[in-house]
């Protein structure tokens, strides 16, 4: 099945300053809190130490948003959130929930 047909889709992105890295999901079940945090960490680990350090606060905010969402039952698409590196032109971490549901609590 093509990823577009899967019900629950989205991605985490680290962008700006010439960087464009992402971690996507496309699956039949909503993305759980645990899987979301794991994907976000995977994205973070793709970056160079400098890129990671620059976006440290943005990753913290993204992590916090995912956890807050989980305590509120998750989120439904469409979600588009930008966590800009303060003072930068466009260095950021983005969260996009393209379809379905994400960040569901573990017991959901």
């Amino acid at each position, binding site marked *: 099945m093509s990823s577009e047909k899967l019900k629950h889709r989205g*991605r985490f992105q680290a*962008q*700006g300053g010439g960087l464009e890295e992402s971690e996507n999901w496309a699956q039949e079940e909503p993305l759980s809190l645990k899987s979301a945090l794991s994907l976000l960490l995977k994205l973070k680990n793709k970056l160079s130490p400098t890129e990671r350090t620059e976006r440290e606060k943005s990753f913290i905010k993204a992590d916090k948003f995912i956890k*807050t*969402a989980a305590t*509120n*039952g*998750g*989120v*439904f*698409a*469409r*979600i*588009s*959130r*930008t*966590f*800009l590196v*303060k*003072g*930068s*032109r*466009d260095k950021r971490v983005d969260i*996009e*929930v*393209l379809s379905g*549901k994400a960040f*569901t609590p573990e017991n959901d």
Partner: protein
Amino acid sequence: MKNTAVLDKNTTQFKFLFQNFLEDKRIYVFNQNYWKKTVKPFLQKNIKPAAAENNIAEDPHNIYNTAFADGQKMYDGNPIFSTFVSQNKTLRIVQEEPESEHPAITAWTEKSDFDNRKELVIVLELSDLTKKIAARLIEHWAKDATDEKSMAAFIDSVFSQNTDK
């Protein structure tokens, strides 16, 4: 290509608007209405069909979900406002906590993966200065910009006067 930004570090005299919007939900709603009023004159008349074609909820002025699954609203300004501005162009405004010593605003355009449309993203701390820059960008995006490239050039021209490139 992601476009440009501005942080005018020569300017220190400015006034934040809706300063407590993250603490006071009433101010937050006033702040949202401010954006609605600011953007309205620039919107094309066909945005409702555009939103429908793109399979977006009835309200073309609220493209993104800003509530959690349990219905609780996020009230965090990310985004504080989003809308279709024309058939294939959208706008997303992320308003951050006012805390910088200098006017803070940045903008870029990006292609949406949701559907066949392009989006102007503005991230700012709202002040009497940044509101004017934002309004210029929104007007050009809605009325004149034919593609991302021309918008990039316009953003550059607006920011070139006082940017810290």
